[in-house]
């Protein structure tokens, strides 16, 4: 059911629109939407603007991110993809001199409200970074970290959760016999999958991924991509990528950002075949960026 789109020498394999049969394949699906129905919007961004000091990095973004779908942010370097992504779990709070306007509603609640508990927000919205960043601890401790922070102490429960997360991240088989070894001894691809395992161990609702494959070779990339595909059954995923093919392969929805503005958003199939905007056209076909 894959649609091959060939255009000006570019060959994109676009992810097929999700069928209801596929959605029910995983038993762990929470609150599965009615078969065939349009997915529920989990995150609603309204009129979001962000300034680093004097410099505006995002302007007037409106975007709806659907539940249990993969949403991709694409755009040229410096257009604000990471900034937008980091707004979703308020990682930008760490940067000095940042001002955010507008609102981001998660389940209808504004996460930029003054009463929001950032820690609780980050429990719901996990993140995987561009550069793999395992803690200088053992593999086990890496995965168990978030659970321990959340207060889990029972060894059985931790063991089970670690195993489950590592299996979900397709890393279990490679590390079963060295869970106590340093995570830093893993290869780059393994480290990135470990970071994914670490993020899903705390069972967030949303996983943000900032160019998760940019440091990986094609094989590791393929593994992570199929992992993303798997995870999208249960998690809402937002991914930033520079790789057009990747965006086409993994995402259901693609948003194109340019100079801090959201230029175009739509189903991946549409963006890669019949986009409306000139800038999108130029970027995807490789005329700039």
């Amino acid at each position, binding site marked *: 059911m894959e649609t091959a789109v060939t255009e000006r020498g570019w060959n994109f394999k676009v992810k097929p629109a999700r069928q209801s049969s596929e959605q029910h394949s995983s038993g762990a699906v929470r609150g599965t939407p009615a078969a065939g129905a349009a997915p529920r919007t989990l995150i609603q961004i309204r009129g979001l603007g962000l300034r680093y000091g004097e410099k505006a990095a995002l302007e007037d973004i409106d975007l709806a991110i659907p539940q249990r779908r993969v949403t991709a942010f694409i755009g040229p370097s410096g257009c604000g993809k990471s900034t937008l992504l980091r707004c979703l*779990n308020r*990682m930008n709070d*760490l940067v000095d001199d940042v001002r955010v306007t507008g609102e981001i509603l998660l389940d209808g609640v504004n996460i930029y409200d003054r009463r929001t508990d950032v*820690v*609780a927000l*980050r*429990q719901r919205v*996990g*993140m995987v*970074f561009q*550069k*793999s*960043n*395992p*803690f*200088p*601890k053992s593999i086990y401790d890496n995965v168990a*970290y*978030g659970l321990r*922070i*959340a207060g889990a102490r029972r060894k059985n429960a931790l063991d089970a959760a670690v195993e489950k997360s590592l299996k979900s991240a397709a890393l279990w088989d490679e590390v079963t016999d060295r869970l106590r070894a*340093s995570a*830093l*001894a893993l*290869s*780059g691809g393994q*480290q990135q999958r470990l*970071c994914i395992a*670490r*993020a899903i161990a*705390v069972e967030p609702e949303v996983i943000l991924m900032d160019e998760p494959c940019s*440091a990986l070779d094609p094989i590791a990339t393929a593994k992570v991509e199929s992992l993303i595909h798997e995870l999208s059954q249960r998690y809402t995923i937002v991914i930033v990528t520079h790789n057009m093919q990747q965006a086409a392969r993994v995402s259901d929805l693609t948003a194109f950002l340019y100079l801090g503005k959201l230029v175009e958003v739509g189903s991946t199939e549409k963006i890669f075949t019949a986009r409306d905007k000139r800038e999108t056209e130029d970027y995807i076909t490789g005329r700039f960026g």
Partner: protein
Amino acid sequence: MKDFWKSGDPFVWLTGAMLALSLLMVTGLVTLVLVNGLGFFWPRGVERLVLDDGTVVVGEVSEREAIPAPDAPLGTPAEYRLQVKRGNRDVEGSDFLWIDEARIARRERPADVVVLERREWGNFYGEISALRQADRAVATGPAEAWAALEGRLSEALRLHEEIFSIEKGEIGANNHAQERLRLRLRGRELRGARDGAEIDAAHREIASLQAAYQQSVERLTRLRQGQNERLVATIAGGREVEIPLDKIVRAYRPNRMGAFAKAGFYATKLWEFVSADPRESNTEGGVFPAIFGTVMMVMIMSVLVTPLGIVAAVYLREYAKQGPFVSAVRIAVNNLAGVPSIVFGVFGVGFFIYTIGGTVDRWFFPEALPTPTFGTGGILWASLTLALLTVPVVIVATEEGLAAVPRGVREASLALAATKFETTWRVVLPAVLPSILTGLILAMARAAGEVAPLMITGVVKLAPALPLDGFFPFFHFERKFMHLGFHIYDVGFQSPNVDVARPMVYMTTVLLLTIVLFLNLTAILLRNRLRRRLQVSAV
């Protein structure tokens, strides 16, 4: 020529040469210390020198040097003189003697020369002729006297040991208990209570302790009466002396000792040096209290300085808003390391001892006043002063470690819903542990070698008791203590008998270096284990 400079080779040579120079200076210093120190305990042969005027000198030749002759014309062969350690300070007045080689008519090594290490007056050199008990001769003749001496010396030493242990142990504990009771009574009195069951009981207890004390004293007197053996000996000039056996620590005939016996002797002396108390105003015996004091002080200092330095560094790097003020603080901290250490000592005296110690005394030890408890120099205050002195090192090392922790790791932790404190505590600090240990290593080395501030905050020439013993509460942080660095200064420059003490100075230096090295090695091993556990990423 231009290419030569451009190639960079001269620079490489320069760096190599500078390194070699530094190494040379360090190894030179260490070798000097080692050679002078380690040779000290090896028993040297005793020579009998007959001078041209018939005088006889018996002793160890300890040095040979050219006689300075500034007026002699160039090319004249140098004349030499010998430094001889003839001992017998009680008779001769001094241990050492310089003799021009030209005046020596004969040199020989008589086999029967006996060296006695004594508790007072330094070594005896000479021959023994008889052993007497009370007024009765037990043995006469050199060989018989020697045999008898060898047999009885261990018994005499045991007796001495017993007397010492009664004095220190029994009587010491008794005094300690009486002192505590007296202080308790005084405390009650200060609060207005003058009689009552409790006070009567205390008085009764003191009385019984005093009775026990009397018994101990009587036992001591009896034991002392048993120390009635004396050795009759002749020194070089033919003068006869009598030496009580209980004043002898060790007797040996170096000219009859083989290499094996000498090695055994060396080992015993070395062991005595590290395990025994000092004798003869520190110029003889061991330095155990000083080793103990140094190590304990460094330990307390480490325990104090580590949390202090870490917390300060964490605040500076993680929490404080970076800006001119924080930079100024950082510069100030770094420059604190350049403040003369005696200034820290003065601060320690003024702040820790007088202010804090004085207050502690008024609040918690009023019954002992006017004798200060904490209001005087002690191991706690000395350690605190040194902690203050070394805290910049720990701060700088920790800060550098903190700066090297990648931002990504912190972000990962925060993204996993950890608070900033949890991130610092569970991720950042463990990763910084090796740097902290590096700082601690430097701090310990500095603290172990520091003398000036200690002299005024609690180090003494001779401490009556160790800061750790069997009396509750075991750790006596208020006590004065001995320290190897101060020991070196004291023995080397304050002792009445510098020539005798000089090898002791070298030996103590060797020991101090060894201890610093040992402490450092421990910390380095620990750090390497941590590093291996935290293994740097290959990616």
